[in-house]
């Protein structure tokens, strides 16, 4: 039973610490495993750890699973965990952030580990889901004690093209960007649903080629599929679209920091500093039209920066701003812009679902209340180079999407809503420099608070403030959009991760 599927790109490396990115980590999750994992509904479940305790706020004890074998037959033990944790903090690692949550780790016995954290951490277990465990002996044998990185001290890192995990599949052939082949690992410790014996993965860049490959019968699953192609998949025989909401929220941000916008005809002042202008924008955008026309009914209009799947989401606060162009015009008039103004907008064109088209629609909607938008749509490489901190936040008005890596609201609040603080690495994706002292305070509290109810209240408060002040203009949660061969069952995780453990092919 070979399962063939395609995605738009390839994972950067087989090395589990080389890139902290959902697709790469998600793929690696099929041959590597961490102490904890998510199930199909993003619920935390034990994996290589059978259970864990939190006897003190900063202290954790993990009980490891016995009888687990790596693909090369080695036994999984506490040494491997500690080794992996150390390796994940080497120079080339991109998972230092996750691994660094744990300040120290000691082996109690072969199957018990004690760890301490720098500060109390409510989401440590979530953060560990993607911190995969490697085999110490194997790494030593192949001299791959450091994570794969592009710095040249590191040529031909063995783990880059080879793996030795504990997961249910083993990589048998790896041609980066061309083809990756996996086969079932017989010694896997757990019974899984899947009847897949072999997996063949091919990256296909072009959306239409991907869809064609599915319809023509060469693929069992392809993703992402352009939303407008769902109709086609529905009509075509033997295939169907598979959709669901993604945990990513798409939103617009505005520069609320500079005294004069970089890209605008208004000189000497910054219209976005005026809450009325921001509100006018919020009411000018017709989220339902975007949903219906551009997203073909597949998006979920949003009122805050996190999606329902995210821990901390509260439906009451999350109601979108109303579409009311009259109100919008009125607000603009009150703010002193009866004829509107011009503003430049930055937009990626290859990052999110229909990103450029959404921007265009926003531009046209704003035009109707008098705001003239000069759209600058670029590929993500140039786009991010321009708007992020490294580019000096060179933007006045932009579109961005965010999925909290830990599936928890704190991550979004910290990165997007906290004031920019370069030293403390806070608010680093708050590109428009939205700032509110109370939100800053709350952010720190939420990070430490372990009591769910109190924590939720604080989260709600933070989102409410941002919403009232119109700090951001949330647009929607974009859809997950896959196409599958009929008869193939694939659970679709909201973080867009494909887990082979649950893939069942028709007999």
């Amino acid at each position: 039973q070979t399962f063939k599927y395609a995605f738009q790109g390839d994972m950067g490396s087989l090395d589990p610490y080389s890139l902290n990115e959902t697709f790469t980590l998600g793929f690696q999750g099929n041959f590597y495993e961490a102490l904890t994992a998510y199930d199909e509904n993003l619920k935390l479940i034990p994996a290589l750890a059978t259970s864990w305790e939190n006897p003190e706020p900063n202290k954790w004890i993990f009980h490891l699973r016995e009888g687990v074998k790596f693909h090369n037959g080695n036994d999984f033990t506490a040494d491997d965990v500690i080794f992996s944790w150390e390796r994940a903090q080497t120079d080339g690692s991109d998972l230092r952030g996750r691994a660094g949550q744990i300040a120290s780790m000691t082996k109690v016995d072969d199957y018990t580990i004690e760890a301490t954290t720098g500060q109390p951490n409510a989401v440590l277990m979530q953060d560990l889901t993607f911190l995969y465990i490697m085999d110490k002996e194997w790494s030593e044998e192949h001299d791959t004690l450091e994570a794969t990185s592009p710095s040249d001290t590191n040529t031909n890192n063995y783990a880059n093209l080879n793996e030795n995990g504990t997961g249910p599949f083993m990589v048998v052939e790896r041609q980066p960007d061309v083809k990756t082949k996996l086969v079932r690992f017989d010694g896997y410790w757990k019974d899984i649903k899947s009847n897949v014996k072999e997996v063949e993965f091919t990256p296909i860049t072009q959306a239409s080629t991907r869809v064609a490959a599915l319809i023509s019968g060469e693929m069992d699953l392809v993703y992402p599929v352009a939303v407008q192609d769902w109709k086609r998949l529905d009509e075509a025989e033997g295939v169907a679209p598979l959709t669901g909401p993604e945990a990513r929220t798409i939103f617009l941000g505005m520069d609320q920091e500079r005294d004069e916008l970089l890209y605008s005809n208004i000189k000497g002042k910054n219209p976005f500093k005026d809450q009325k202008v921001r509100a006018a924008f919020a009411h000018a955008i017709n989220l339902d039209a975007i949903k219906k026309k551009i997203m073909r009914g597949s998006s979920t209009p949003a009122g805050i920066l996190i999606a329902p799947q995210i821990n901390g989401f509260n439906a009451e606060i999350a109601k979108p701003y109303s579409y009311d162009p009259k109100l919008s015009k009125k607000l603009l008039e009150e703010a002193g812009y009866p004829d509107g103004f011009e503003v430049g907008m930055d937009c990626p064109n290859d990052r999110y679902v229909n990103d450029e088209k959404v921007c265009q629609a926003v531009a046209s909607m704003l035009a109707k209340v008098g705001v003239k938008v000069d759209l600058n749509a670029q590929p993500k490489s140039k786009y991010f180079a321009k708007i992020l901190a490294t580019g000096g936040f060179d933007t006045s008005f932009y579109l961005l999407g965010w999925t909290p890596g830990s599936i928890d609201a704190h991550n979004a609040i910290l990165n997007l809503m906290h004031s920019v603080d370069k030293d403390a690495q806070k608010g680093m994706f708050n590109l428009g420099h939205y700032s509110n002292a109370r939100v800053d305070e709350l952010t720190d509290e939420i990070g430490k608070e372990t009591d769910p109810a109190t924590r939720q209240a604080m989260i709600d408060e933070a989102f409410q403030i941002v919403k009232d002040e119109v700090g951001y203009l949330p647009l929607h949660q974009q859809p997950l959009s896959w196409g599958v061969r009929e008869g193939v069952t694939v659970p679709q995780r909201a973080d867009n991760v494909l887990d082979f453990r649950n893939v069942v092919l028709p007999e």
Partner: protein
Amino acid sequence: MISFIVKRLLQSVLVMLTVAFVAFALFNYVGDPISNMVGQDTTFAEREQLREQLGLNDPFIVQFGRFVGKAVQGDFGLSYHHKQPVSDLIAERMPATLELSFISALMSLLLGIPLGVYTALHRDSIISKLIMTGSLIGVSLPTFLIGILMILLFGVVWRVLPTFGRGDVVHLGWWSTGLLTESGLKSIIMPAFTLALFQMTLIMRLVRAEMLEILRTDFIKFARARGLPKRSVNYRHALKNTLVPVITITGLQIGSIIAFAIITESVFQWPGMGLLFIQAISDVDIPIMAAYLVMIALFFVVINLIVDVLYFLVDPRLRVDRVSSGR
């Protein structure tokens, strides 16, 4: 001849240096490599550290110098995205691209030249007018559109050809070929044809235009007066005399297919160098881009060298008498 070639190869070193230099000046504008190398959660301090490690903060002259220094030792560095030595990656992708360009060049020559000759010989016939017009439709549509339409037709509706990739390949030493398996052969048809379309039209039209002139020359008339058969007059004498521009253009076209069959390769997910390159652009994978551009420079120098040598082989008038040209 040998001296000519040696001189040319020496010049190519200069060309490659210049290319590398321009390339490094260019990299400031292609985007930020770091944001493609780390996850969104990676802190800015870590990003800065990586940037420092990779030497991206150095002035471009320094980066350029470092690149050249290593390149002369055959080291083109590690790809940012694949974390593999760039030379390995390029070597791995080269067979796919070379095969594709070879086949499509062959297609365009085998179709373009005879059609060009035909349309020149039968200037006013309906068929040649149809050929001339039809060929233009092929070039007025963008490659991506033609590619998709073909995929739709042959891959999805009729399901006779695979929609993507290279099919099964056979490894002969370090070379991988798809030309020895059925699925490999099937896979190459559509991308090769898509690529060939533009060139075929160009070559056909060039051949026709040049032929029309040559057919009016005295030596063709004399060849006919000697009773030489049509085939010999048209192909051996007339066609050969049209070759100088055709060789030039064919050389350049083959060069640019090898180098930048970007769109075709990505439409058909052809695992060649074009695909590698376009992804390197979108990943801002500077080591790949740099090494690749330099290698392409070498390609072009060699191709143009071959073209110039072919000039000399084809046209004896161009051979030596340089010395005699006065002011």
